[in-house]
């Protein structure tokens, strides 16, 4: 089958499939098509959900039928294919590494024959692309971590991981947006709320965005935490130009 193609997901959803592997190229194509599709503002579309290899489109068949939607998608695919120039938006997330906030930092260091300081330097030196969000509200699947700090997930998952915990599982890194169980190695914590139901934008991060972790000390962590709780903290965001 030649990519991209359309697949039936249910009688109220379909997927536009762009590939069969996890890669930056595919995710970039999905993001470009997602933006182009949503700009069309087609009646009867509930929402689109970008994942690693496909864009799932949830729709109301009371307003638009599968065949009609397929026609619009095919017409758009021909155009959107050439429109994949997207600027890189990077959001800086402050992190207090190690100690009680990152109980597995030493373990990650030992596993890779590094010092904790080297782990922090490596982890905070890259801009990570958010491939997709899923699992729990605001949980982001980030790609592009340095293999030098890759560490297998815990054999026995923790029952409760505090919201804001930053972890490593295999070659992936991520942040827990809400208190939840989980098996990732915890190397630090951010005072920033990735998920806040009462905020105008309840979920801070979005697929296609990049994240850069900024190491902070405990004093700075507590200062930011106070501002977050007062609703007066905004993460620094910058645009890096076209991809």
């Amino acid at each position, binding site marked *: 089958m030649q990519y991209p193609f359309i*697949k*039936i*997901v*249910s*009688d*109220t*959803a379909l*997927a536009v499939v762009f590939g*069969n*592997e*996890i890669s930056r190229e595919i995710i970039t194509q999905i993001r470009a098509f997602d933006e182009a599709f949503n700009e069309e503002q087609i009646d009867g579309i*509930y*929402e*689109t*959900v*970008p*994942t*690693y*290899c*496909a864009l*799932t489109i*949830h729709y109301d*068949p*009371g307003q638009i*039928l*599968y065949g009609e939607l397929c026609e619009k998608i095919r017409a758009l695919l021909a155009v959107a294919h050439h429109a994949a120039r997207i600027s890189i938006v990077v959001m800086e997330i402050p992190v207090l590494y190690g100690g009680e906030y990152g109980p597995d930092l030493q373990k990650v260091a030992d596993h890779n024959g590094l010092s904790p300081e080297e782990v922090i330097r490596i982890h905070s030196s890259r801009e990570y692309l958010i491939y*997709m*969000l*899923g*699992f*729990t*509200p*605001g*949980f982001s*699947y980030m790609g592009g971590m340095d293999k030098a700090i890759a560490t297998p997930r815990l054999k026995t998952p923790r029952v409760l991981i505090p919201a804001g915990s930053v972890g490593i599982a295999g070659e992936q890194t991520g942040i827990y*947006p*809400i208190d939840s169980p989980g098996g990732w190695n915890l190397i630090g914590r951010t005072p920033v709320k990735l*998920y806040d*139901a*009462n905020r105008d934008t*309840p*979920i801070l991060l*979005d*697929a296609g965005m990049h994240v850069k972790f900024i190491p902070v000390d405990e004093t700075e962590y507590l200062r930011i935490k106070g501002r977050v709780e007062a609703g007066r903290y905004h993460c620094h965001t910058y645009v890096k130009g076209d991809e």
Partner: protein
Amino acid sequence: MGIMMLQSGLLTTIQDAGRRGYQRYGMGVSGAVDVHAYIYANILVGNRQNEAVLEVTLLGPKIEFTSNSVIAITGGDLSPAIDGTPMPMYRAVQIQKGSILSFGPPKTGCRAYIAFAGGLAITPIMGSRSTYIKANLGGYEGRRLLAGDEIAFRRPASCPANVESRIMEPDHFGGTYTVRVLMGPQDDSFTEKGIETFLSETYTVTNEFDRMGYRLTGPKIEHVTDGNIITDGIAFGAVQVPDGGEPIVMLADRQTTGGYAKIASIINVDMPMIAQCKAGDKIRFQKTDIETAQKAFRDQRAKYRAMREAFDAPQPASEKPPAPAAPAPQPAAKAAAVSGTGPHPYRIVLGGKTYDVTVEAIK
């Protein structure tokens, strides 16, 4: 003024049509599991489509009315009673201030829906009043209702037109449910034999059935290699088959994305049958196509529209509606399984008279 919870029941939550537009952020849709019963309940009390109701699970709550109200209960028969007297389901009922709604043993189905004329005064979060317990979000403080909780009506003293004659044929539940499915999106993860097993065998609902999903047990469905895929989107009614080979049906509180192969999806008009299943109930899967599924979807929506209009139409003053007779019973599960072929006939009881109506699908 509204209602006060005297007893919580097993799992009573506030639900509406669900939270749309946030799945890309990992936020589930939630909403009523039995969408059909949910819509019926709101139509009966004259509410608009998206009004919040109470979803009651198996063992119902005890609720005191702190003001007069008009309510309707649809879905599974969980033996509702007003001040100890059995309350008729599938019709609008006027309730006096101080009355107590209670439930008895579950007779049929799994979930009942209580709609209140004027709706419930719950602040929407991300455009919905639905409770999503896993994220402690929406509904009443993000949790199931507990004794002592008080909820006001959104538009107090609402009373729909023709309240005496807002009556519907009840849905019936029981027996073996045959639900129609669309194959895919990962039917290619299964062998020919696996697909044959899925479409010909009978599966039983296990004890693990909740708002998120139903785990079924039955003959193992054979994968080509395994049940893992690169994580992708999940629809309401998706049938996942992990490595173990037994299906899981995904419902309202499903996660937005998942990494298990989905052999098929149950079509929306047949999902109420799943919503009313409980442990031990039997399910069979029957293959259909997208045209049939979407036509059935449109037929059903046209039926809702026609019912709404019929209920709200002015009635001649001379024709005072007599006390309506109990609606005739229907064959099991017929009401939930809307036929997908040809114009769909249905029955409305209005002003004591019975109307047989046929609605063409709206193109």
